[in-house]
């Protein structure tokens, strides 16, 4: 544990030096780890999803650089997160979403699909007589000449196969 703390301290120091060069390290890999770490700047306490992956504050930006540095040292995602937990405590850790995240949208999708299927089931075997209001089926052209022209094209189109 002590060794881990020393190595963590070393990383913080090197990261601080790195941060002073105003590095702009933003990558999917860094963000992937950053989403599991809660912002600790103290300014976004009202904010429920202030993840370090997106924050622009004095905590998040150097911390992202720190993660970048740790990744370059060869540390895995879990090791990096553990290093942050060791420094700040469990409160810094953000969990993966639970199964509700998946279940609820897909259940709603399923309920919608069932509703549509029930509507469509009513249709099967029940074809009410049709009574065209003006003329059946296809759209009606206002101009009779154009209507004839369109009909000719539709006949030609029907022969294409």
């Amino acid at each position, binding site marked *: 544990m002590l060794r881990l703390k020393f190595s963590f301290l070393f990383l913080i120091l090197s990261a601080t030096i790195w941060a002073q060069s105003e590095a702009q*390290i933003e990558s999917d890999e860094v963000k992937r780890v950053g989403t599991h770490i809660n912002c600790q700047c103290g300014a976004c306490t009202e*904010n*429920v999803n202030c993840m370090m992956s997106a924050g622009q504050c004095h905590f998040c930006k150097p911390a992202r650089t720190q993660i970048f540095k740790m990744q370059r040292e060869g540390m895995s995602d879990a090791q990096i997160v553990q290093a942050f937990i060791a420094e700040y405590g469990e409160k810094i850790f953000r969990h993966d*979403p639970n199964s509700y995240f998946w279940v609820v949208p897909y259940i709603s*999708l399923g309920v919608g699909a069932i509703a549509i299927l029930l509507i*469509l089931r009513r249709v099967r075997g029940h074809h009410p*007589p049709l009574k065209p*209001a003006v003329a059946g089926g296809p759209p*009606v052209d206002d101009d009779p000449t154009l209507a004839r022209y369109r009909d000719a094209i539709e006949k030609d189109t029907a022969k294409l196969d």
Partner: protein
Amino acid sequence: MENVGALALLLAFCISLYAIVASVAGRLGNKPFLTLSGERAVLAVWLLISTAAGILIYSLMTGDMRMAYVASHTNRAMPKFYKFAAWWGGQEGSLLFWSWILSTYGAVVVLTGRGKHRMLMPWVVAILSSVQIFFLTLNAFVVSPFQVLALDRVVTSVPDGMGLNPLLQYWAMVIHPPMLYLGYVGFAVPFAFAMASLISKAPGDSWIHTTRRWTIVTWLFQGTGIMLGSAWAYHVLGWGGYWMWDPVENASLLPWLAATAFLHSVMMQEKKGMMKVWNMVLIAATFFLCIYGTFLTRSGIISSVHAFAESPIGKYFVGFLAIGIAATVWLILDRLDYLKSEAELESVVSRESSFLFNNLILLASCFAVLWGTMFPVLSEKFSTEKISLDAVWFNRLMVPIGLFLLFLTGVGPLFAWRRTSMESLRKNFQWPGIGMLVVVAALYAGGMRYPYSIISLGLCFFVLATIFMEFFRGSRAINEKTNVGLIPAMIELTHRNTRRYGGYLVHMGMVLMFIGWSGHPFNQTAIGEVNKGDTMRVGSYLLKVADLTQGETSDYQWDTAILEVSKNGKSLGILEPTRRFYKIAQQGTAEVALRTRLNEDLYINYAARVGDKATLQAYVFPLVTWIWVGVVVLIGGTFVCLVPSKVARSYPRTEVVGIAKTNAPVKV
């Protein structure tokens, strides 16, 4: 001068109130002079808000550092272009911008609707003015842009301002917010017409015909705004992301998805007299999701790189949403008798049922995005567990839904209205289906092992093939009839039914975007510290650091890495990624170097420099350009939809005996 601006907003607030009273009293009391007076009040409100906006813009451009808003969002070194953009760069200014766009839309509605829609217009004016009052309340009483800096009750000024966030100083970011706002605010108009139609118990679909173009234009603004934001993220943030499922990105996507569902289902009402209640629900949902999105961005309940600072306006939005949704639900329930369907579904395999599934998927996407956005909030509320929810999780949830939507994009338009025969199904889908299977097999045989990418590219082929077949069949018929070439025949075909063929082009744009997204799993990344004269490799590219230069302007310091790029031994020229450090904001930004081709982008971010050593982040993004090509095609297709068709068409309702006559009696 700031007092004049504040006074103009107060007057606009009062006159908006008058517009509501005059319109409603004029309509109920049958007094045309009052309704006319209400319409003129809308024009007066526009004039007053324009005056306030003009004063704010003048203060921004001249650098009036007595004003808190100017000092917070500009500095003297900023180019004029960005000083103007600071109007919507902060909370107070952007809310004034919201109000100004709404008042402009209101004025356009009044001016273009003069003499038309006599029954609807008073209610339209009242509803738009109600929304206007809400925003003017914020402008005038809660977050005024005309506050001045004061010390011991004496007005004072600062020598220079804080400047606009350097990340926002990018051309796409200047256009992106106005586009989004034009979309967000624009949906208030079809919503107002829909509610006016309900209040006045107006028969038929006149509100839909009146607002069809308006809805499409607004949808286009919203979509363009979203994609400009995406382009900004890709080009500015330095890591090549174009969509992160950030809460604020999601907030803009929600109304767009609901509006897309509305634009599809509204065709059912126009052509078949069906889904009338559903369309009311969809347009109301679209409007309230716009307000909800604005609330998300500004209340501070969620964190985002795009969000404004925390402010006290959240509770006002909650109140407005609660009252608005309650009133809308009551109105729809009260008018259910007037919204009865004029027809029934006749077949499972028909255009109508495909629209139902289309709506289901779009609404499911909308709900999934909303659920995901609010999930951390709900989770912490009910389990006190902090949740990590990033793009990876959203992609897992949304990609299957998106692929099904892509499938429907190909299938839906080829089903016939009422019934589709097996012969027609075979004719339309046989060759695209076979082609899709061949593409999938070829991709797998070629070594591709990402299932979603394989399915996506296969479906893209399928949808493109069906679209091309539609264009080809129609234009060949014209070509044989008139002996014109295929291309002119295709143009003629499109011109005859712009809505249908423009719609196909919009679908084509979406397909091209899916092609771009399909390349994501094949991204390649390399991060390296490279000495001057040394090289690093990313994919098949070799990058040699030829030089590292630096300098400064009045606004920022810059560092540029001059890179010689080659691929397979062949020189491709020089790329110059730059990083800037803005002096006043004390913030760095990336000016990435990009080599764009249709097959892949080479993307380089100059992340840091230590002595003669540069830290470079280099990426190869396959197919990403197709996203932007798709956006252009989508915009073009939408414009085609807006062009009037050469052949005027009217669609007779196919009436199912015994249904149409059960409609509620019309009372006007």
